[in-house]
Structures are given as structure tokens and as C-alpha cells.
């Protein structure tokens, strides 16, 4: 999924070559969260809250978003956030972008899951909204990113998107159930990858988990903190690195020959 950055700089492809910080013009982000509110977002995770009841996917997603916002603002207080929901189609939940955590909290609380399944998930409206907002963001020297939090295991998303419009970056966090005869998470995943490749301006990341563990969700949200203009290819992500003590250097004295065991 090699893609040129907006400034004409190609992404750093790196294996053993060292990283260089390219002196490109840096834009702050407007990040639009789009949260799937289908019935499947009420599926329980494997972790319980303080009252003993397991968290639902939607609750974990809200917590993960708050964590993300706090972290992103601590990294750079000029990033901003807005919210949309995805039912059959997308609708804006809070359209003004804001960098205040306090204003995000009531918005997130107000998002509730549907009590039944939507038959389809059409991302076209989401992309139209995002393209519209992206033009406004660009006018303020910002770039737009959509982070789609998707929860359905049997409904691959669909979309109609014309030509080469790549005005915003798209990231996807996909929470799903384990594959079974009644669902098709792989098909859903492939459809999400397809959308990402067709629509995303900078390298978009797609992360998935069927394990129901909140710590994995939180960890993956941290990967999404990475700024689209400075990303490497998803396959080349080399963080988080472990802060472990390196073992002391090996003893340089040669191994004695006597240790070799005679073959029987």
C-alpha cells in the first residue's frame, strides 16, 4: 500500500536503514471518529467492569477513544476531534472539531447502540462528510483523518467512491467475533482494507481483534496515534519497542573444544 505523501515525500521504507526525520511541513490533525452503533457493538468483551458486568464493545471503544484523545492532546494540544455514528449510514454526532477532552465526554456518553441489527453499512455518506470536512480543514492548514470503529462480523461495509479522491486518511479498528459458519469476519476485513486503499490519502492503518480483550484494543489505539504524514507502511511498524535491559555482552573467550560430545 505504497503511497506518496502530500509533500511529494515517499514514506520511509526502512528495515536496517536508519530513520531520518524529513523536514516536511507539518499539519495538525482534525480527527473524526466514526463509531459503529449496530446491535453487535453490544457484544460483551472478556473483561468486566467494577460492577462485575462485562464491558460491551461500545463501552470499550468509548474508553479507548478517551485514552486516545488524552494521549494525542498530550503529544500535541492542537489536534482536534469530532464524532459520527455509523448505523445503516453515517451521521455526525458532534460536528465541530474541538481539542477539549471535557467536551468529548458528554458526546461519547450520548452514543448508544441500536437494539437491532442494521442490514447494511454504507460508508458513502461517511466519506462524503469526511471529504467536505477535509476541505475545510485544509483551509485551516490541517489534515483530516477518519478513524472508523467497526463491530459487525457478518456485514461487510459497502461504499461508492468515485475517481481518485483522496482527501483524508482513513484508519480502521475492527472488533469482531471469531469466525463461525454464521459470520464472515474475513470478508468484512477484506472489504475494510479495500475501502482504506481506495480512499486514504496517507498510509491508513487497519487493526483488528476478535479476542475481546480491552488491553489489546487500547494498545492498538496507541498505534493509531501515529501522525499520518510521518507513518511507515503498516507492515513495517517497529513500535512499541520493549524497554528491557539488554543482556550483558557475551564472554569473548572461545568455547573449549572439550565440550563437544562424542557422537554415538
Amino acid at each position, binding site marked *: 500500500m505504497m503511497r506518496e505523501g502530500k509533500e511529494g515525500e515517499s514514506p520511509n521504507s526502512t528495515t536496517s536503514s536508519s530513520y531520518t*526525520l524529513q523536514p516536511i511541513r507539518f499539519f495538525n490533525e482534525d480527527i473524526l471518529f466514526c463509531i459503529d452503533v449496530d446491535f453487535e457493538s453490544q457484544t460483551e468483551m472478556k473483561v468486566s467492569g467494577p460492577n462485575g458486568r462485562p464491558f460491551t464493545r461500545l463501552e470499550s471503544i468509548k474508553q479507548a477513544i478517551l485514552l486516545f484523545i488524552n494521549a494525542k492532546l498530550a*503529544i*500535541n494540544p492542537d489536534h482536534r476531534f469530532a464524532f459520527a455514528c455509523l448505523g445503516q449510514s453515517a451521521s455526525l454526532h458532534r460536528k465541530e472539531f474541538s481539542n477539549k477532552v471535557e467536551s468529548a465526554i458528554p458526546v461519547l456518553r450520548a452514543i448508544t447502540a441500536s437494539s437491532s441489527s442494521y442490514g447494511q453499512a454504507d460508508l458513502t455518506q461517511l466519506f462524503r462528510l469526511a471529504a467536505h470536512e477535509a476541505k475545510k480543514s485544509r483551509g485551516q492548514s490541517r489534515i483530516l483523518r477518519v478513524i472508523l470503529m467497526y463491530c459487525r462480523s457478518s456485514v461487510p461495509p459497502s461504499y461508492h467512491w468515485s475517481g481518485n479522491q483522496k482527501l483524508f486518511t482513513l484508519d480502521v479498528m475492527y472488533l469482531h467475533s471469531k469466525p463461525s459458519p454464521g459470520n464472515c469476519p474475513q470478508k468484512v476485513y477484506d472489504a475494510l482494507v479495500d475501502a482504506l486503499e481506495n480512499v486514504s490519502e496517507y498510509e491508513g492503518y487497519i487493526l483488528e481483534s476478535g479476542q475481546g480483550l480491552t488491553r489489546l484494543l487500547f494498545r492498538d489505539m496507541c498505534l493509531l496515534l*501515529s501522525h499520518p504524514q510521518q507513518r511507515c507502511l503498516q507492515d513495517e511498524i517497529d513500535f*512499541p519497542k*520493549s524497554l528491557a535491559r539488554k543482556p550483558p555482552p557475551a564472554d569473548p573467550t572461545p568455547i573449549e573444544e572439550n565440550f563437544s560430545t562424542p557422537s554415538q
Partner: protein
Amino acid sequence: NFVFSQVIFPVSRKYSPAPSAPRLKLVCSSELKALFSIDDIKLPAWLDGMCMAEYLPIIEDKLKSQLVEAGASIGARKCFIEALTPLFGRPLEADSMFCWKATFFASFGSLRFWCTLLYQPSFLSNNQLWCFKVLSHCGPLVPILLPDQVTVVILQHFNSQGTPVMSPPLIDYPWSPRWDVSKMAERIFDFLVEECMEFKKYCNDARVLKPPTLQQPVIQCQRRRVYQIQFDLLYLERKFAPGNLGAEHFPKHFFRHGGYL
């Protein structure tokens, strides 16, 4: 980008043999402000009988050397960020124009945290500050020290409910202006390994004031760690009195998100 000088010539009623010195002020464009602080430039003294034609070249030379120095500083910060990447991975986000800050995501056992390296040029007037903040949903925030520059370490942790906890400033990391960037990066790595363990224990001691809800209660830190600054004073631009640098030395905006100390 521009710098211009505002010159105000006083006009007095009575005639005096030599005109009095004008008031001079330098103003620069906002983009240049990101590079260095124009207020830090000390304007040369106006000598009696001087005129602007003499004075302006002096200012120009001073500005040129300031810019060269600022450019070299950018280069030094850029090298340092790049030297951290073999140990910490690519940064999540870095200031690519002036290299004021970079953030990395690392893990320590089950703790995951991210570190922001922050350079605050107007901090402590004359003193330049590198702050390597490590944010974590289970880990510390650590600032680091670069040669000639003061760094402050602040730990920030998000617990499993996503609640932020902040620590008081810590200032006892190893550094030396004689170390090259990769050695500095290694030392910081080692320091962080130690700090992760300490901060984990520290967070376990913290008491939650309200039950965790989506209302983001702040965890009150119960202990305050204050350290002696161990600097090689010969290499510091500005000398610090031995003793503790407590929180009152830091501007309030430094502790964003309502962190308690």
C-alpha cells in the same frame, strides 16, 4: 519570514546638540518565532552620535549569527531524535520543521507507554529545556536532559480505566554534554528502564478520589520526589543553585490536563 525593527525617535521641544537615543524594538514574523525567541536578542547599545546606517548592520550581523545558531540547534535536535529510533522505534509524531518535539511508543513488560521529547525554548528564561515526556496507559512520562539544556522529567500514567495520573518533576537522569547522541539515547533508555519500575510502584500507591467513570477523575499523587540536579556546571549556560527544583519553578501550563502533584 522577516524581522523588522521598530524605531521610535523621541521628538523634544527644545533643541539639543545631540539627538537622544531612539527606542528600538525587534519584531519578527510568527514562523520565525517558532525558531527562536526574538526577545532573547540583546540589542547592542546605541552610542552617542550614532545613526541608523551604522546601527542596522550591527543588528543584522547579530541576527545572522542567531539564525545560524538556531539552525545548528535544529540539526542537533534532529540528530538526537534520529538516534532514539533504534532503541524506541519510529516516533508516533515529531515536529519535522524545527524538531521541538518527538513522541515514541514503548513498552516495559506489560506496561505500555509513549514518550514525548519536548523542547521548550522560553522556559526558565535563557534556559532551554528538553522535556522527554513519557505518557502511558500503564507507564511513565519521562523528560530528558540534553547538553547545555535543562530537562524535566514528568511521569504520566493512564490506568486501566483511562484515568490520567501525573507525577512531580524528576530531574536526576544521567547526561553529559560530552556524550554523542547515540550514547545519550542509550543512557536515556537505561534510565527509563529504571524509572518504569519505580513509577509502576508509585502508581500502585496512588489513591483514586472518585470511582472511575467516564468523568475522568484525577488521581492524587501521594508522594513527591524531589531531586538534586547533578549537572556538570562548567557546561551549563546558566548555573543552577544546588538544591531542589520544585513544581513552583514551572509555569502552570506545563502541567496540562489538570495534573496534580
